[in-house]
């Protein structure tokens, strides 16, 4: 890849807090004008990595190159080019929507006419026009999120970091939010978004699955699903609660997840006749069942990855 097409490149990026290894030797290569996801449970190092890439935390080891600038050395120059939407709402609760945007516009030293124009644009794009006089504290989760995104994109950054942007937002707002992200991306903005929602991860152009500070898998959602080193079988049975521990105890079973009356089972791909063995095991305990071999989903990849049973694909 041509270096100018790369937004973020890291090698062995590591961060320790005392004796805890929060981020463990992460290598990233994120192309410009794409949406890249960090998928991982709480404490997997998503926020710490984002903070290092913004220059807010000093890496313990490794190096990072963001928009051609070395971080944290050139962090101050980088700050003109990036927007960062923090996990927690970080604008001023006691200022109104308009006052918050004005403050941010002034902090970035936008010329006066440009400030007025840009704030008007953002109020329209993010549907905040009717809320301009409202204090941020009285906004709903979705409104706060729109305000935060408006503030983070006010100075038209080349690169946008979004740390779990949709955690306090209803599904409808999430859909709209992602539409906005694709519009920003189409206009050339690179977006790095962390999430613990599968459906959001699936929308990313590419993503990395993080667990305990390490990248367990990365690639496009399709690549990850194709490269999953497991087979997926859905089992339907009358008493899934009883069937579940029986299946989990079988050799070669990686995980069992209950989905309503069905059980979704991840198995070792080298297992011979997996579906038949599942039915037999349940039959031994007087449980009739039907099985269906299905295509792996990203959630299966995530489950396998966070249990350490995923082989990194050739991406």
């Amino acid at each position: 890849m041509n270096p100018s097409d790369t937004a973020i490149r890291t090698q062995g990026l590591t961060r320790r807090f005392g004796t805890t290894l929060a981020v463990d030797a992460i290598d990233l290569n994120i192309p410009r004008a794409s949406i890249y996801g960090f998928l991982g449970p709480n404490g997997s190092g998503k926020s710490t990595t984002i903070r290092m890439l913004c220059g807010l935390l000093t890496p313990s080891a490794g190096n990072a190159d963001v928009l051609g600038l070395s971080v944290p050395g050139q962090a101050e120059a980088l700050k003109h080019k990036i927007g960062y939407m923090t996990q927690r709402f970080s604008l001023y609760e006691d200022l109104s929507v308009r006052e918050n945007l004005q403050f941010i516009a002034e902090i970035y030293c936008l010329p006066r006419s440009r400030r007025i124009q840009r704030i008007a644009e953002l109020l329209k794009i993010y549907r905040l026009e009717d809320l301009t006089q409202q204090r941020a504290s009285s906004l709903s989760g979705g409104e706060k999120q729109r305000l935060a995104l408006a503030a983070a994109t006010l100075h038209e950054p080349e690169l946008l970091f979004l740390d779990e942007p949709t955690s306090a937002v209803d599904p409808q707002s999430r859909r709209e939010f992602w539409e906005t992200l694709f519009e920003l991306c189409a206009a050339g903005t690179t977006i790095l978004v962390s999430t613990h929602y599968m459906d959001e991860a699936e929308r990313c152009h590419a993503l990395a699955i993080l667990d305990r500070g390490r990248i367990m898998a990365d690639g496009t959602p399709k690549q990850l699903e194709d490269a999953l080193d497991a087979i997926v079988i859905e089992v339907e049975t009358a008493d899934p609660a009883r069937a579940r521990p029986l299946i989990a105890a079988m050799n070669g079973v990686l995980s069992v997840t209950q989905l309503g009356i069905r059980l979704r089972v991840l198995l070792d791909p080298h297992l011979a006749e997996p579906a038949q063995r599942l039915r037999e095991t349940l039959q031994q305990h007087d449980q009739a069942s039907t099985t269906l071999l299905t295509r792996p989903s990203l959630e299966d990849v995530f489950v396998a990855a966070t249990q350490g049973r995923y082989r990194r694909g050739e991406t």
Partner: protein
Amino acid sequence: MNCITRLLAIVHKEVRQLRRDRLTFGMIIGIPIMQIILFGYAINTDVRHLRAGVADQAQTQLSRILVQDAQASQVIDIVVTVPTAAALEEHLRRGDIAVGLYIPPDFGSHLQHGTRAAAQLLVDGSDPVVLGAARRLAELPVQYHSLATQDTRTPLFEIRNYYNPERRSAVYIVPALIGVILTMTMVLFTSVAIVRERERGNLEMLITTPVTSAELMIGKILPYILIGLIQVSIILALGVGLFKVPIAGDLPDIYLAALAFIAANLSMGLLISTQAKSQFQAMQMTFFFFLPSILLSGFMFPFDGMPLPAQKIAEVLPLTHFVRLIRGIVLRGAEIGELFGELRALAIFTGITLTLAVLRFRKRLD
């Protein structure tokens, strides 16, 4: 239902948390130690070693004995010798001396005839403790009582109380109170300023923008300067209106002194702010700064009465310099130029603390 285990669980948890909150734990130990040392040791209303000046126009053997006796009493330390009473007054106004000993040319004959007091004590009455000490000095038994044919009912000294002849406490309390109130409010306001942004999560957003440390620090200070000046005006207006405090000096001088003092306190508050982890910690640290300021600055107890180590600490505190400035300007009518040293001390304090605050503040989370 009461349950002793539940009660003990709360006690246990509380003690555990207290032990881990090092600052609170430090206050539990530190405040009694600080208080007892300050009150018991540094604060001494039995004042000795008041800085004094002498104008001996008699220049006789008797007048020299008088000066020596006064010195030997240890109530005063003679730091300047000047030719005239006017020069003594000048030093008194500048605050160089607290007591002036004036011996007129006709000292000998007054002493002989005993018609009136032979010498004068010029006292800075803006501090009541100093005035009290001067009274003791006036009652000093001096050797030459036997030598002279003086009527013992005529006092040797006539006390001339400068700047607060009616000895009203409001007169010396109110001007210095400006300083006390400013210390309390200014340091507190700014000490929580950065911490509050950190606690509410605003700081993470702010440090991702191109804003510089100096912009952030100075921007935080500026609005409070105005607030401080408003407070000064309120206290002054009340002091004059309600307590009839006479203002001998110029108003612009008062505001200039207040400005320098406000800047010093705001910088101190910011420094605390860059250090504290929570708003509560910031308030605790503010208290630690406030306590010695109140006790050592000369607001409550005269500076001259304190032992040298306490005086050295007091010299670092902005309130000490402001109390000297404001009493000088308001009560003694001194011009700010005459008190330049105090102003410079405040400027140095501001410069150092503000620089430290800017340096301590990192646009980082680690």
